[in-house]
């Protein structure tokens, strides 16, 4: 799946990919929808079994294929459906954000949040916040694979 568009022709809108864990954040997104909470339409969600499932390779591939930011959302630490998945994810993304910073990509383009299934409002607020953050950073050209 490619999410590229011709930036030049239309007004630029940030494209954000969200990895949501099935048990918490995806349910949170669902609740936000059920409550008819207003949120920007810039976020595309991929459902994953656990935030611990999210491989840094997925994130790099997303940036290669043209997203401007990535959000990884999972259960609060201690609430993981699989007990410990998000603890591993936490270590992984703390480190990965710093690697992003080190190679010159703004670490704000990779955001992580813990959102439970009951936090529909938090999900909507997070989506709004992340969208605004990425909008402020502008379109991402770094790491983009121009050849496809």
């Amino acid at each position, binding site marked *: 799946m490619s999410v590229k568009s011709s930036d030049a022709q239309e007004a630029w809108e940030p494209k954000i990919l969200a990895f949501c864990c099935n048990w918490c954040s995806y349910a949170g997104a669902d609740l936000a929808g059920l409550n008819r909470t207003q949120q920007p339409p810039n976020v595309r969600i991929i459902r994953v079994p656990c935030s611990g499932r999210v491989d*840094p*390779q997925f994130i*790099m*591939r997303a940036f*290669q294929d043209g997203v401007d930011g990535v959000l990884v959302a999972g259960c609060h*630490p*201690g609430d993981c459906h699989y007990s*410990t998945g998000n*603890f*591993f994810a*936490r*270590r*992984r*993304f*703390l*480190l*990965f954000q*710093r*690697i992003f*910073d*080190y*190679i*010159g*990509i*703004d670490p704000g383009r990779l955001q*992580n*949040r*813990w959102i439970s299934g009951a936090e529909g409002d938090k999900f909507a607020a997070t989506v709004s916040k992340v969208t605004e953050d990425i909008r402020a950073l502008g379109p991402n050209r*770094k*790491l*983009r*694979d*121009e*050849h496809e």
Partner: protein
Amino acid sequence: MSDPSGEMRELAKKLLENGEVDRIIGWEKGNLWYQSPPLFITRAEETDRLVFDDFAINSLVTYLLDERDSGKKTGIFVKGCDSRGLVRILQDKQIARESVYVIGLPCSGKKDPRQALSSGASESSQVPPAAKCEECLYPNPVIYDVIIGEAVEAKAKGDRFAAVKEIEAKTADEKYAYWTSQYSKCLRCLACRNVCPACNCRECAFDISKPRILAKENNLSHNMVYHLTRAFHAAGRCVECGECERVCPMGIPIMQLNKKIIKEINDLFGPYEAGVKLDETPPPLGTYQTSDPEEFM
């Protein structure tokens, strides 16, 4: 440092003769004075070819992976840095401790054949020490069955993260320009992966064709993904042997990324030295603490 070659040959001969090992991996003198390539021997009469001189810089431990299923016992020579690579392979359960007879060699620093060639030197004494040896913290093997020679003092060294801090001080665009200038040189020959003791998977993610992580074409985006992925796979497992950087035909400063990861792991999850103790807890990314830093609330 006295020349341990005599003792090495004697020991290797004895091991092969009494059948304690099936093969020996060491170094021999190459055709040129600045080359000491790896040597594989299975017969006692060949042991006279073994040497350990200034250019025995290659780590030999990844060759153990080639015969990990053969059931043979290998006698292997290790320097300090190599021994940490061996610990890495043993901790990753790629080979059994019983399948290897480890002969330790304290090392006061080796020289890089490439530097010998580029400096125009005509003998070993004119060649500067190899870059990876300048920052050596473990000149003595951390694991061995027998050790040949006297232990060497670790030299007082400067800041091993100096190069990392220099890059950290740049702006985001300067960093990106620096790294793209480096990674655009990459040929994707995979030499850094092949030589890395932490890259010991039976099937490497980059070799899998479905799903394919990397495009076949060589472009900057995929080169960056290759290097970042490899560094991340070795995160918390890299033993700082510097072999990746040594073998890189394009001179990409691979260790600058690996060292950054080591530095951040030390800062985030507490000091950690990979490949030093055999009976150790999992590497930092293979475990967690509930008290880890929380930035994602």
